[in-house]
């Protein structure tokens, strides 16, 4: 437990950790509950113009001619621009990173020039006085196209029959191989080798708020203020500055309320870059909000992997080696600036991660296709790595006739084996797999569920129990992006200011996307300074206001931003006590801060309310000693350094019932035990896990972006693309083991992606456990009723 290890107050006082570890409701949720949030589309600006985009109807086609003449005459139209016109204001980009060796991608423009490479790529921009007028004009643009051969299937892409970008010679964006050298020996000496192929459907984030941007260029000062639904304001400030050629100091990015992100809103989108360029071109504010149909065509997609995996083990259950071959389909471009190579890279890094085998071989190809681009979405690569690890582990346990929980227990890395280096090279500071497994089995009543399952099978009721152990990348150091040349900050900063009234203002570079960042920063700041939480106001999401930092991604907000807030809070507390000592003419060491007042450290007797201290410091500094200057604004930064990533671990379980006649899966219950280090706010952490689990369930059962052979997206709307809704979702039970990271004083690791990382594997294993008496097995996500019935039918045919 981290509680005793976190001396937020000086030793000898009677105080606990303040608000750390308490389920405090988020102060910033109140405005959202009254419909008084400030999402981009809620903002009102004078002379605001609206952008809409003419998008390619073809997956791959040459743009022979674009005729704007009729469209330009429509009411309200301000201007229509093609790719060349926008390129005069916005330079193209190439999404590669130096540490992803060999990754390649062609230059990409904000608006396509000469050629469209996926259905939905923006090929012209219309700006009008209203969105509906802009859309009307889009419908009147006349285009002539020359259709080009399309690459839709990833196996065909790898073969290279048709090469999408001739200058790149082939369709391989990124490949990676890893081999510990002893794999062949491990497989030849094994008692059992199991092999399977897993397929992961292409899906997307489906944030309820579409991508949104309002760019306001001020020609008078050559400045650009961008109101942006983004997770990384400073990254975007840098990008707008460099690609629009505006000095960085003149670019301000403001992220107010953001309606869901999950990694969708951390990338550079061509239509958003175009919107910023249009504001510069037209010297007035321009807004673009992606509607639902545009979202499906242009928000990043993710996953779409085909992975062959083999596992070698002994009769005792000891795993000797994993061997995998991953193929994943990108779009026609690697996505800027994080690249589209990371997900496959993570599959190679993480597969087999919870287990203690020493031999590992992996091969991965990420290939271009003429479908929408793919990039990092919540849990990046983890759902793939966890599902294929846990899927093949279950198959091995089944072949050995061993209980899957027992099989895992024999192979999980021991809790006292840390620090530990995994065969792929990743390093674990301290994990708690066995504690988590024990806690999970106890929490779910595993043995009773197994007995109930056996009993129900006799009545031809097919229930399944699926387990999924996992590791997760959190709190990334510069090793994630910075070392590869990306100008993405791995450090974050917090400024704390004591106001004259005794209030504390916190300004932090990590953003709020609804996960509760501002709430936990208030908790940490209040605890560190010694004030009550209602005295704290938190400001995030404004490059003009907060310290410089990375923002929200890779489960880093609490662990990195939270530590910066803690350090700044402690420094502010020390500075406040300096002022108090000078005012009261007492030794600083005799004083402390409790409940908004400076107190005698030993007796806890109030010596001076902070409001009085603020009054003196700001309005009557003449009463302080002449040589004394109060410093009631402090800034601190934090970067994780000792480990490239602060790994967390956890384990999930799913209980399902499969109807063999209809193929329907009923989710009965879901459990998650997670070790994310110090838990700042148990309620918010559990809600992150639950929401993440449900997104993972979406991937397992419902969500897939389906493409036809011509590269047309077949189900790009919210009626045909199924997302999890309330009636089908189970209750989700959460529990925690707390192993604080020693790299920071707060001890928090990340948690935002854990649910999504493990849920697909747990659900898949539960379905296959349910199907086992029928001899059926499914490995192609999402597990639609059709696919399950097909699996049962194939088993019958074999029998």
């Amino acid at each position: 437990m981290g509680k005793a290890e976190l001396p937020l107050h000086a030793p000898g006082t009677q105080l606990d950790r303040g608000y750390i570890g308490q389920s405090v409701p988020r102060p910033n949720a109140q405005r959202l509950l009254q419909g008084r949030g400030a999402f981009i589309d809620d903002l009102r600006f004078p002379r605001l113009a609206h952008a809409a985009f003419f998008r390619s109807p073809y997956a791959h086609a040459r743009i022979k001619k674009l005729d704007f003449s009729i469209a330009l005459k429509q009411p309200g139209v301000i201007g229509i621009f093609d790719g060349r016109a926008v390129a005069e204001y916005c330079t193209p980009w190439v999404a590669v990173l130096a540490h992803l060796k060999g990754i390649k991608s062609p230059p990409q423009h904000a608006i396509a020039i000469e050629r469209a490479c996926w259905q939905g790529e923006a090929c012209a921009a219309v700006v009008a006085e209203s969105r509906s007028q802009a859309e009307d004009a889009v419908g009147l643009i006349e285009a002539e196209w020359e259709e080009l051969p399309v690459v839709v299937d990833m196996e065909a892409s790898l073969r290279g029959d048709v090469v999408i970008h001739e200058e790149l010679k082939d369709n391989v964006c990124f490949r990676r191989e890893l081999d510990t050298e002893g794999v062949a020996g491990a497989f030849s000496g094994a008692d059992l080798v199991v092999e399977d192929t897993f397929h992961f459907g292409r899906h997307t984030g489906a944030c309820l708020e579409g991508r949104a941007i309002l760019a306001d260029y001020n020609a008078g000062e050559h400045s650009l203020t961008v109101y942006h639904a983004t997770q990384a304001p400073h990254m975007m400030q840098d990008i707008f500055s460099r690609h629009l050629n505006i000095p960085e100091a003149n670019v301000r990015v403001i992220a107010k309320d953001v309606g869901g992100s999950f990694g969708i809103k951390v990338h550079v989108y061509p239509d958003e870059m175009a919107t910023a360029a249009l504001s510069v071109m037209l010297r007035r504010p321009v807004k673009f909000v992606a509607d639902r149909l545009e979202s499906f065509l242009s928000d990043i997609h993710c996953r779409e992997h085909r992975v062959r995996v083999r596992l070698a083990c002994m009769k005792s259950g000891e795993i000797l080696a994993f061997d995998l071959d991953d193929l994943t389909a990108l779009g026609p471009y690697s996505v800027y600036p994080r690249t589209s190579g990371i997900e496959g890279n993570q599959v190679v890094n993480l597969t087999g991660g919870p287990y203690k085998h020493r031999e590992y071989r992996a091969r991965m190809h990420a290939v271009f296709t003429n479908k929408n681009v793919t990039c990092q979405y919540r849990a990046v690569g983890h759902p793939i790595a966890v599902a294929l690890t846990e899927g093949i582990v279950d198959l091995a346990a089944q072949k050995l006739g061993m209980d899957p929980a027992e099989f895992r227990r024999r192979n999980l890395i021991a809790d006292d084996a840390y620090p530990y280096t995994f065969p792929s090279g990743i390093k674990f500071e301290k994990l708690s797999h066995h504690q988590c497994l024990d806690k999970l089995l106890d929490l779910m009543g595993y043995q009773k569920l197994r007995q109930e399952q056996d009993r129900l099978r006799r009545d031809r009721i097919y229930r399944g129990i699926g387990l999924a152990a996992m590791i997760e990348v959190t709190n990334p150091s510069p090793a994630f992006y910075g070392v590869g040349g990306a100008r993405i900050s791995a450090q974050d900063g917090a400024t704390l200011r004591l106001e004259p009234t005794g209030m504390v203002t916190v300004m932090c570079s990590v953003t709020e996307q609804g996960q509760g960042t501002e709430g936990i920063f208030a908790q940490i700041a209040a605890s560190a300074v010694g004030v009550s939480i209602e005295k704290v106001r938190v400001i995030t999401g404004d490059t003009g206001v907060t310290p410089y930092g990375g923002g929200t991604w890779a489960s880093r907000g609490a662990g990195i931003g939270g530590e910066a807030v803690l350090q700044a809070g402690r420094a502010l507390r020390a500075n406040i006590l300096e002022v108090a000592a000078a005012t009261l003419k007492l030794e600083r060491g005799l004083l402390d801060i409790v409940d908004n007042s400076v107190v005698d450290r030993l007796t806890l007797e109030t010596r001076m309310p902070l409001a009085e201290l603020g009054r003196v410091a700001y309005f009557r500094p003449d009463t302080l000693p002449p040589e004394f200057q109060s410093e009631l604004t402090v800034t601190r930064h934090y970067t994780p350094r000792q480990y490239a990533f602060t790994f967390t671990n956890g384990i999930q379980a799913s209980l399902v019932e499969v109807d063999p006649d209809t193929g329907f899966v009923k989710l009965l219950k879901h459990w998650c035990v997670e070790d994310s280090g110090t838990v700042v706010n148990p309620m918010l952490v559990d809600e992150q896990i639950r929401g993440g689990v449900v997104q993972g369930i979406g991937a397992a059962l419902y969500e897939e972006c389906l493409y036809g052979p011509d590269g047309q997206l077949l189900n790009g709307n919210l009626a045909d693309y199924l997302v999890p809704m309330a009636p089908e979702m189970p209750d989700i039970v959460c529990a925690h083991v707390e192993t604080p990271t020693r790299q920071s004083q707060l001890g928090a690791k990340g948690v935002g992606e854990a649910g999504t990382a493990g849920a697909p594997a747990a659900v898949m294993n539960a379905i296959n456990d349910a199907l086992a008496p029928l001899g059926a097995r499914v490995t192609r996500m999402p597990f639609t009723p059709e696919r399950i019935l097909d699996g049962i039918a194939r088993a019958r045919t074999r029998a």
Partner: protein
Amino acid sequence: MEQALDITLTVNGTAVSRRVAARQHLVDFLREELGLTGSHIGCEHGVCGACTLRVDGEIVRGCLMLAVQANGCRVDTIEGLSDSKELAPLQKAFHERNALQCGFCTPGMLMAAQDLLKHHPKAGREEIRLHISGNYCRCTGYQAIVDAIEEVMHGKG
């Protein structure tokens, strides 16, 4: 030219008269003409429920109804029901249980939940889940929302 019609309706208790385009959706009218931006637009094809409003006492999709169809109607939005305190118990329970994250679905979710409270005040957990089956939330996983609605119902019962 676009066809326009005159309408008069009551929005959150106040009489409003405007000339509106025949094709304008009710939620666009509320957001663009009246500045009532609490009702959100999530899909514009009637699936997500973010634009759920109350028209003459019944909840509707603001993206599936035209503004001209609301002529003569009484329209209530999240802003009105917040100010009147009608939603206060639900808002309190949602806040305390963190039954919202990004908050984009929340106004529509509250409108749907309040409708259930009015019409089926003794609904069970499964009925609650069914009643909000037309309101998409990508953040929470729904459990806290169901918990919050159940708590308000239980308090009433």
